[in-house]
């Protein structure tokens, strides 16, 4: 309430009574605390063979912007981390009580308040604007690739399994040549993939740690996502939303193959399953149950 008393800052009268003796200061204790922490964790990490840039799972997809933004934010917050922690430690060491000392009597500084409101404000706003486009490109359905040129897969979740369904040779879902697969999601490399996801029971979350894709599934809704992978191999699919007692084991694999391998796999699956009435297909029944409404 006394912002006006800034005028007293420099011309307070000399204190008559010395303040009581201060507690014994421990210079550098904060620094030691942080060092213990830092050394401890670096030791553990290096024992486990993990180096800094490898901390995140390898990104095999095209959503690199998520990683870029991560490191931009790490740089910005890292800067403010060191500035503020540095000032804190410096002030604690520099301004410990001294016999006969007296603190500066000030209630604040208007210019400083404006500076540390508007500068972080602008930085935060810039970060916010910077990312809107990339979020849209990953999540807005209007920005999804064209379904005609993409591989469309139905993803179906139940406690505690992932099922995947492909349209088969005719490219149409709900016909006798549909292919369904439990726990392995085969996709071709370098193609746009569109998945349409549905859950039969509780919430699940479809997470591809190596693609930077995560999306919750909601009963009663079909939720589409898209992604694009540029590397072949076998990667984990994780359920990231607590879904009950078997949540931990609700895992599947993403198997990325070349286009030829993928088509061969599809053909072979189709032959194994043969032509069948889609209404008898357990997966199709689940899918329809999701549409009971």
């Amino acid at each position, binding site marked *: 309430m006394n912002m006006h008393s800034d005028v007293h800052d420099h011309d307070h009268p000399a204190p008559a009574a010395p303040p*009581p003796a201060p507690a014994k200061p421990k210079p550098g204790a904060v620094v030691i605390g942080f060092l213990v922490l830092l050394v401890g964790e670096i030791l553990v990490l290096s024992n486990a063979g993990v180096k800094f840039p490898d901390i995140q*799972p390898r990104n095999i997809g095209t959503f690199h912007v998520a990683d870029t933004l991560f490191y931009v934010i790490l740089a910005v917050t890292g800067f403010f981390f060191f500035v503020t922690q540095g000032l*804190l430690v410096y002030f604690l060491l520099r301004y410990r009580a001294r016999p006969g000392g007296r603190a500066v009597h*000030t209630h604040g500084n208007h210019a400083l308040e404006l500076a540390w409101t508007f500068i972080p404000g602008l930085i935060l706003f810039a970060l916010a604007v910077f990312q809107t486009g990339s979020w849209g490109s990953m999540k807005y359905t209007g920005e999804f690739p064209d379904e005609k040129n993409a591989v469309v897969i139905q993803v179906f979740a139940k406690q505690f399994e992932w099922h995947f369904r492909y349209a088969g040779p005719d490219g149409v879902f709900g016909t006798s040549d549909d292919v369904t697969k439990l726990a392995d999601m085969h996709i071709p490399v370098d193609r746009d993939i569109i998945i349409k996801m549905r859950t*039969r029971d509780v*919430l699940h979350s479809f997470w591809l740690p190596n693609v930077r894709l995560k999306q919750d599934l909601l009963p009663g809704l079909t939720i589409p996502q898209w992604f694009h992978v540029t590397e072949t191999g076998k990667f984990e699919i994780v359920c990231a939303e607590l879904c009950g007692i078997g949540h931990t084991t609700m895992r599947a694999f993403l198997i990325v193959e070349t286009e030829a391998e993928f088509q061969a796999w599809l053909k072979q699956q189709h032959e194994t399953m043969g032509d069948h009435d889609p209404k008898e297909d357990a997966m199709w029944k689940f899918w329809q149950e999701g549409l009971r409404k």
Partner: protein
Amino acid sequence: MEILAGRSAQVSTAHALPGTPHAVAHDVHHHDEPRGFWRKYVFSRDHKIIGIQFLVSSILWALVGGGLAMLVRYKLAWPQAQLPLLGDWLFPENNGVMDAQFYNMAFTMHASVMIFLVIIPALAGGFGNYLIPLMIGARDMAFPTLNMLSYWVMWPAFGCFIASFLVEGGSAATGWTAYTPLSAVELGWGQTLWVIGVILVGWSSIMGAVNYITTIIKLRAPGMGLFRMPMSVWALFITAILQLLATPVLGSAMICLLAERTLHTSFFLPDSVVIGDAYARHAGADGQPLLWQHLFWFYSHPAVYIMILPAMGFVSDILPTFARKPLFGYRPMVYSICGIAGLGFIVWGHHMFQSGMNPYLGTAFMISTMMIALPSAVKVFNWLGTLWGGQIRFSTAMRFACAFVSMFIIGGLSGVFMAATPVDIQIHDTYFIVAHIHYVLFTGSIVGIFGGLYYWFPKMFGRAMDERLGKWHFWLTFVFMNCTFFAMHIVGMGGMQRRIADPMVYEGLHRWMPLNRFMTVSAFLLFLSQILFLWNFFKSIRGGERVGNNPWDANGLEWHATSPPWFENFQVIPTVHRGPYEYASPEVAEDFLPQTREIEKAPAS
């Protein structure tokens, strides 16, 4: 009736002040002070006793919550090992190895106990009750009987939580967020008792909030303008408003969930949900699973601020006292609390970026969330400004307050990652989030609570806690909490999802097992370090050093009262002449200038 009587006595003494108030005050004292043990210490209407009751039950529940955390950490470090001591007794059919259902229950109840029975009751119930009347110069709360009720409603809630552990199937196991449909369809009484318990805690919160708001608006001592109130009172005031506005929403949602579980309504379940082989609801049911998340987070996001704002208030009081320097930017500090509270109501959607909510909404919530970092940044800079140019005396309370500032910076900055929607896609539901919430709630709120306890303990009991033990407690806590929680950022970035019972199931997580064990050992040591605190706290109540009414040379009205304050706090309601942060004032020779001290107009120098 008693409520009214208490209040009119308050008003009459306040008015009688300039004359001879002593007789009046004395009179009130003799009429009201309860004599018997039960009326004085158990079913007490005295805000100080109620505050201490809240604090002590929070400390005891913290042991339960902490113990559950140890079970969680043990499972994550050695997922297939037999649980020592308890294993054979709890899991005889599983060779003493903790099963997934028990693990789900352990982390659910760890969070529920810590949030609903420890942090919120300690901050709002404990410190709010104890400090508000003392700091604004009132004799008691506006509604003392309601106040007593707000504590005793906690006991049925305690009963529900305890009973939930004992019923068949165990306690709630669907996460403290209790997302539907899982929480609606899980069998067993555990989840139902959890719901009832949380409703009761919410009821207690609402009664407390009404009381705090009324007390602060109506019962301030003469001269105590709103902008002369200490930051703790401001923070508790804004917190109470948040509680009053948000808790009814949680209560309503919980009642809907209770109906969902017991009456098979369909607020949250559509008709297509199949559990086992049967439909969970009749055809035509059109509940919305997302409705739960919206209602839950509409409360629980403000609740995050309910759990941190009071601690910020304590820190804003402790730093000036020990830096012997006025709080830097008092009004910006007040406005930033108001800003956090206001923005806190329009950011709940950032918990739901990946929930299936319309992604356009995600963009809107991302921008409001980015902006809420701003008032927090203003607070950090002002705390640093308070330390600048000070004469810093170190005490345990001051160490915890400085640690709060340092740790809150980490918790605040890690929030920026999650606010960024494209980054959140990857780190949502991973240990990065777990790290963030623990940096806010443990190294923030709990550290703030420790600071507050060491600081106001002499006021509560007339004796100080042991500083040497306090110093050990501080350093062990500081080191081990960072070892425990900082590493969580790393495994979270590394792709470890939260709420899994066995990281070894995932090949990508094998490389994090050494770090998981490091965190677990640190967590055990962190837990053990709290023995120093417990010993110090309970021993010092009777055996601590007597330190007088104002051991820290502080300015606030609470230090004007005796230690411990007598039944109605003040012999005479004090008159307030200035704000609470006049340290190193040029007007007096001492380096502090209490709010109550009257100075004759000095001749112009």
